[in-house]
């Protein structure tokens, strides 16, 4: 499967076909999730209407962690197997993951003020998620810091792999340390402890966020490939020889058809 879409032209065709469906599915799930979260879901018996922030805060946190995991896996694939689309996927996912992390931090702060009486506390969960946000920003900055894009990509991949140690710290911080943040109530041994009336809209919003992430990822990967081709054409005036039917991806260096 990975080798099949290592050919950028094949990836562009497949992603072009899938994008409208993903966009429509994301819009439908988000619309359903928003109505359910804001109108249909009952208030919490302790937190009242402020629980409605949970329906964006928790899915955003899940996506922030998932996006970083994807970046780390793609970075490993790029370093070990030199898959031509792995670095592109990692770099495309980084701004999206950073956006979800920012949403998680901001909505968490807005939820924490009425519940805890504080906009921010330096407890383990909040601090580790803030570190995750800085990792995203650091990755984006590092990749773009080099004139040679391949060196920047390699440096970013190494940073992403080092930073993955933060993911279990985030997940288990509420168990390992005495934190203000509540323990897990969905992804836990023994199953979710949250009532179905709140769990279902939470899962619908998560599905909407996941589809939005997929749409943005495919879009940004296509942007990167388009811009790469444009740069090659501008530099050399003609593209490399291509074999559209071949399964092997080709270098974009013109004049030389090099099968990667």
């Amino acid at each position: 499967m990975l080798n099949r879409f290592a050919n950028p032209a094949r990836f562009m065709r497949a992603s072009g076909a899938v994008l409208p469906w993903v966009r429509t599915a994301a819009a439908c799930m988000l619309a359903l999730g928003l109505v359910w979260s804001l109108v249909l879901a009952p208030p919490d018996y302790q937190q009242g209407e402020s629980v409605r922030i949970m329906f964006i805060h928790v899915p955003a946190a899940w996506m922030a962690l998932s996006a970083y995991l994807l970046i780390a896996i793609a970075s490993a694939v790029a370093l070990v197997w030199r898959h031509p689309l792995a670095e592109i996927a990692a770099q495309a996912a980084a701004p999206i993951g950073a956006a979800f992390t920012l949403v998680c931090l901001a909505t968490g702060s807005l939820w924490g003020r009425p519940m805890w009486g504080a906009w921010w506390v330096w407890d383990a969960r909040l601090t580790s998620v803030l570190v995750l946000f800085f990792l995203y920003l650091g990755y984006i900055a590092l990749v773009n810091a080099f004139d040679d894009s391949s060196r920047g990509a390699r440096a970013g991949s190494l940073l992403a792999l080092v930073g993955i140690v933060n993911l279990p710290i985030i997940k288990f911080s509420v168990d390992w340390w005495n934190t203000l943040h509540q323990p897990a109530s969905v992804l836990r041994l023994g199953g979710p402890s949250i009532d179905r009336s709140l769990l279902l809209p939470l899962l619908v919003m998560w599905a909407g966020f996941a589809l939005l992430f997929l749409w943005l990822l495919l879009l940004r990967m296509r942007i990167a490939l388009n811009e790469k081709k444009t740069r090659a054409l501008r530099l050399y005036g003609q593209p490399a020889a291509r074999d559209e039917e071949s399964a092997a991806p080709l270098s974009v260096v013109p004049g030389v058809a090099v099968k990667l």
Partner: protein
Amino acid sequence: MGGYAGFVWPAYGVTTAVLGGLALVSWRRHRRSGSELLDLQRRVGTRE
């Protein structure tokens, strides 16, 4: 919103602004990159 409107609506507003802004920027850049490439391919004399 049971007295929590000042927290709930800004939370949804920030989410819409950040994710919606990213979606809009990405969509526009995607259209621009595609049309630039197509235009360049036409001028160079190659078509996908």
